[in-house]
């Protein structure tokens, strides 16, 4: 599944053991693809000394209030770079 800038996406809510690059605090949250960063070797495989397959990395923008509900107010956002296998189209469930 590949996405374009502007697409609404949701981060998969999964908690695998091992080395992962998706921060705990954005799992299950919805955001918008801010840009396609590029293709990189999958660091979750490189971490175990294996060759990583190429994965597309996206910069996803979240409303800060969606991520941290205690945020007082305002339009602050959080950008997190997330690999394609952690993202699903928003609306398709998790």
């Amino acid at each position: 599944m590949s996405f374009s800038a502007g697409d609404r996406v949701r981060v998969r809510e999964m908690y695998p053991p091992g080395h992962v690059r998706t921060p705990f605090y954005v799992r299950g949250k919805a955001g918008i693809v801010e840009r396609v960063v590029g293709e990189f070797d999958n660091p979750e495989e490189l971490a175990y000394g294996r060759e990583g397959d190429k994965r597309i990395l996206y910069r996803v923008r979240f409303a800060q209030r969606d991520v941290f509900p205690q945020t007082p107010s305002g339009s602050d956002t959080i950008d997190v770079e997330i690999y394609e296998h952690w993202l699903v189209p928003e609306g398709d469930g998790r």
Partner: protein
Amino acid sequence: MSFRSPHDMGGLPAGPVDTSEHASTFWEQRVDAIRELTRKIELDGRPLIRVDELRRAIESLGAQSYDELSYYERWIHALSTLLVEKGVLTTAELGRKLAEIEAREEGT
């Protein structure tokens, strides 16, 4: 059940961040140099230790060690583990060297 690794602490309550500058010590510089060497030395056309592997080893220290160790202590523990995993060092070699250094330190 959601598994949260000890390093993955974004958003958790925490005290103020200490932003004061401090000079690195000699042993910290040596750890940094060892890390650089393990990145530059290639094995089968790739770095002996990739940054992703170093991060994985640091994250695997366990919650108590992760919290108690300093930044470069985490690095040297993780580097030691990876060098043992890769067969560069044996635990026996590490143990002998640590005992030798402890004996030397006691003598000074």
